[in-house]
């Protein structure tokens, strides 16, 4: 479970987060909606303890990332919008590296790489050097890395971007499996279709503030708008900055 209460973060004069509050439950996929520049990246970085908050409390599975970032990170799968790979390493070596950084090794790691590879359908690229991978292949490798150490919490920033139909399906299967396992998944996305199909809960943030939280149906009901996309625009209060 991820609990965030009134988190604020400023960089000089710019207030990136002005008060974010939400709770993401275990066994649920929570969508994080917000226009570009709403503070999603800052929020995610604060959750893994890369940035220190100015105010408020954060609890990830009961641990404060500021007090014990290592414990929090061991339990988080973090997929950011930056997913550069190491071009001269093969996919397997890449996964080995991050597996070992997360304290796995030997046979257990090998078995787990096999599992993740099956889950995402990436056997064909496992032994290839990652140089020249397509966007979809890159995302798959990054996703595999995110799932590798069986984290209880997942922070995914637009995981479906660049994936073809087959891969999107594989991703959806993976997310459903995680939910069934009781993981807590937060997924930033701009695709409303995905939100409706996958997510039990939606957090809408704009200009560094939580604007609303609830199921897609609740949000539609609250705004009195049937279409989630229109409801989102109405909540954010502007037509600007929707990708």
């Amino acid at each position, binding site marked *: 479970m991820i609990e965030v209460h009134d988190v604020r973060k400023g960089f000089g004069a710019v207030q990136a987060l002005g008060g974010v509050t939400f709770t993401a439950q275990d066994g649920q996929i929570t969508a994080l909606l917000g226009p570009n520049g709403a503070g999603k990246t800052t929020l995610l970085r604060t959750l893994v303890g890369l940035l220190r908050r100015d105010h408020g409390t954060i609890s990830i599975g009961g641990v404060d990332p500021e007090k014990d970032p290592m*414990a929090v990170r061991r339990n988080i799968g973090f997929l950011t919008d930056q997913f550069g790979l190491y071009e001269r390493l093969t996919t397997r070596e890449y996964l080995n590296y991050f597996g070992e950084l997360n304290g796995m090794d030997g046979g257990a790691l090998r078995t787990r790489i096999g599992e993740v590879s099956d889950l995402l359908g990436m056997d064909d690229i496992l032994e290839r050097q990652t140089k020249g991978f397509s966007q979809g292949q890159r995302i798959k490798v990054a996703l595999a890395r995110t799932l590798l150490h069986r984290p209880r919490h997942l922070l995914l920033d637009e995981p479906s971007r660049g994936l073809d139909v087959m891969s999107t399906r594989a991703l959806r299967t993976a997310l459903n499996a995680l939910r069934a396992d009781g993981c807590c998944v937060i997924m930033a996305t701009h695709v409303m279709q995905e939100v409706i199909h996958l997510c039990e809960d939606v957090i809408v943030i704009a200009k560094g503030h939580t604007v609303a939280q609830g199921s897609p149906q609740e949000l539609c009901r609250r705004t009195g708008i049937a279409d989630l996309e229109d409801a989102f625009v109405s909540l954010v209060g502007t037509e600007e900055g929707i990708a």
Partner: protein
Amino acid sequence: MKSKIRVVFLKELRETLREKRTIGFLALMVLFYPLLIGFTLHQLIDKSTRTEREGLHLTVIGAAKAPTLVAQLRERNVTVNESGPMTPEAIGELLHGKKIAAVLRLSDDFTDNYQAMRPARIELWFDSSAESGPQRRELDEILQAYSSNIASARLLAHGVSPVTLAPIQLQRYDTGTNASRSAMMIGGLIGFLFFPAFILCMSSAVDSTAGERERRSLEVLMAQPAHSWELVGGKWLASAALALVGVTVVLILGHAILKWLPLEEIGMAWNLGWGGLLLVCLATAPLALLASAMYVAMAMNAKTFKEAQTLVSMVMLLPLIPGMVVSFMDLKTAQWMYLVPMLSNQTLIKELAKSGDIGALPFVLTFLCALVPALLIAAFASWRMKSEKYVLGV
């Protein structure tokens, strides 16, 4: 469970070693320099010993006209080939072969003029582009001596003392020895043996920091459950490992070459044994650590990969400066020199080559003067990676 620092270390090393072109370049650098030193010194030794080894070869045209001259030349250890008349082209051809130092041609009316006490002409043909300057000077001296002998004899015959022809007596003393002339040069040459420590770690230090940032893989890495000192440490040690291997190989290769060359021929000595070399290699290990720590810290903070490369290549030249200053100002070896990284290594090997025994202190100072700043800089780099400002730049 493997330690995180080792995981990062092995991954960075594997990634660097997989880039064939970089490795090829590094290998070339490692082999090239000792071989260059070897070749330069070999040429030097060869040149300075050639004259006494081979003596002076001379072709004389019309030798029968001046038997005394030929006899005097032979007395001075000159090999004289007598030859019949030759055209200027033939002489040029002969000189071009570089087998002989010069050609003497006695003119046809030499005997007549000589007997009539008119100046008798001797032509000296030489090729100034050939490297036989000292040999030609020697030949000039012999001819001068021959000429003044005859003059003295003629004056005596007229009842005049030959001493009138020598109002002054010039005596030359050259205090410069081969040893002092070449010591400077050798000092400069062996100083470069340590330079690979600063070259070989460059690409991997820049690639694993600024490169990783530019390829957008750093944020993910920093979000892993590993402390920043483990990440920086692994990257630092991986690039230092390359420099360490490189500089050790260069030192061993350079040592083998210097031991093999007959340096005593040019009045030099290389008194270092293999045991001493081992100690020098050990004392040099922190130099590799210092170089890569410097590069990692700088490249990490550069805004772009390109900027990192430029910065690092400028810094690369810094360690050469103290050695050059000392060599230009001709400073005597002093204790403080063992406190300046790189200069300390240069001084150490120079002194060892000269005398062989300098005690333990210079080794300890050389070791520490690089190790301490290396650790400080690495600590700074990991503190820096933890800072929020750095995270924002990623």
